[in-house]
């Protein structure tokens, strides 16, 4: 008699509940892509937001500000300074919107995930599928925005090509954490907290001016924010000031991804498999 064989489980999945992953997260993304054919205006509007900011602040405000010191201290134009910041912020905004409002609606109103769990799909498929879609969408926006930057002559280095995978990492991290946070929310009022977290981050994470304008204690606070690391990462790449420090910024997002995916999957399990 042979003992029942247990398939080898990669160690990271052991953090997740058994039988919760069918390996079909891609099908969730097929679903989102099909659905988005009908909602393309909302899809397209996500591209214009950072472009409007770039035009308004970069050219408008930029004509008053002049040049600012870049990552290596060399002066760069104000538009070239804020463009990577806007790139990082749009990656964050898109991912947060998809993984909070949209997920909350599908979870509690459309009961979409309930219908999916009646199939072989498990909570991990749902979490990865939704996060993956937010990621894909973020990637498309980032590509479009990078093209706009190139058109305006705001890209100073071929390293900027790496800004695309960097934007994907940022979107992945924010989508994972956003979905985890959403799983704890009870009503739409809780979403004020999302705005409360996202808006100050957008304004103060060196998106629009360098860290040096703050007193030291505030600098430390800003340095802890995820968007700060995203902005610094992008700015390093688009201006071509590349060093090992950029890997440190990337590490921040790896931690966010792992924590986010594990928490989101576990919480979905408790919410959906009662």
């Amino acid at each position, binding site marked *: 008699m042979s003992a029942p064989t247990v398939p080898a489980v990669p160690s990271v999945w052991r953090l997740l509940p*058994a*039988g919760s992953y*069918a390996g*079909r997260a891609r*099908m969730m993304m*097929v*679903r989102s892509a*099909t*659905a988005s054919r*009908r*909602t393309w205006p909302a899809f397209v509007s996500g591209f214009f937001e950072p472009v409007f900011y770039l035009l308004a602040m970069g050219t408008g405000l930029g004509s008053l500000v002049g040049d600012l010191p870049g990552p290596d201290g060399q002066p760069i134009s104000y538009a070239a300074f804020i463009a990577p910041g806007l790139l990082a912020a749009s990656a964050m905004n898109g991912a947060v919107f998809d993984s909070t409002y949209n997920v909350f609606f599908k979870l509690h109103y*459309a*009961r*979409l995930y*309930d*219908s*999916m*769990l*009646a*199939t*072989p*799909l*498990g909570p991990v498929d749902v979490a990865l599928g939704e996060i993956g879609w937010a990621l894909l969408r973020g990637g498309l926006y980032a590509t479009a925005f990078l093209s706009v930057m190139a058109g305006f002559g705001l890209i100073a280095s071929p390293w900027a090509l790496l800004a695309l995978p960097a934007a994907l990492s940022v979107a992945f991290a924010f989508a994972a954490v956003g979905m985890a946070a959403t799983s704890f929310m009870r009503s739409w009022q809780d979403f004020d907290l999302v705005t409360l977290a996202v808006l100050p981050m957008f304004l103060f994470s060196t998106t629009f001016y360098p860290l040096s304008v703050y007193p030291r204690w505030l600098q430390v606070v800003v340095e802890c924010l995820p968007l700060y690391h995203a902005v610094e990462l992008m700015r390093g790449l688009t201006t071509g000031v590349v060093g090992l420090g950029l890997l440190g910024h990337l590490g921040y997002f790896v931690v966010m991804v792992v924590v986010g995916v594990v928490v989101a999957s576990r919480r979905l399990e408790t919410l*959906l*498999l*009662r």
Partner: protein
Amino acid sequence: MVIAARPVGVSGYGLVVSDALVQARGLRKSFGAFEAVRGIDVDVAPGEVFGFLGPNGAGKSSTMRMIACVSPRSAGTLSVLGMDPGSDGPRIRARIGVVPQLDNLDAELSVRENLEIYGRYFGLPRRHVREKATELLEFAQLTERAGDTVEELSGGMKRRLTIARSLVNDPELLLLDEPTTGLDPQARHLLWDRLYRLKREGVTQIVTTHYMDEAEQLCDRLVVMDGGVIAAEGAPAELIGRYSTREVLELRFDPEHRPSAAALERHADRVEELPDRFLLYTSDGERTQGDVVGAGFVPLSSLVRRSSLEDVFLRLTGRTLVD
């Protein structure tokens, strides 16, 4: 040599082996201090339509969710298609179809896409689901509406689409939770017809309902559930024979001149007093009616009907099913 050291039919894993598609022993489900299902035994044979009948809160939906592998059991054993929902959830779900109590169709997709995308969740190839969707649209009489969004459908159409969706993986076992609640009579009859066709094709079905006529129409065998336990089990006709008389005489009286139940009791096998009427259980309703009138009672209206599962439920629990 004697081998049968343990009870016949019980495997070493503690699961009872049988031909049953679904088998539960001492199955329980609690939510905190509240116990929704309090130890039930169920066997569902291949090819039959099995019903869970009971009022809201009887534990029907909790039982269905456990069978559908979306709710871990609190105690007892449960086997579905010979597997344990606790460890084989995805493999079981791949072979069953689920019609939930509330339609949860995908409002962002069209009618046809709802079927195709759902099929993809089962890992079915694109071309296969396309053909399957065409077939199921026909089955659900929704071919004309294939391109519409779900919002544009009527309640009955949505329900039919939900049932069609549950068939996309050619399930061996179909779970229907209150399939016709909230539908008008015409829509209900159309649905019953579709479920009957599936039965003829050999699809095993488990249905929950709080409608007596639905249970009588659809179910080969059913259990009456109340307060998380099984109150009775059998075929509809068998239950009526066991717990009720052949006929029932319903009498309504002017509230001013309403007699006591005790006064009517000698004219029937049994009398139930409801807020608006008396039910007299008897083998011959016409004769009992004559007896009652002959004894000087003057009902406002009287009606003789055949016994139904409603009467069985009333007898077993002392309450009517739908208040």
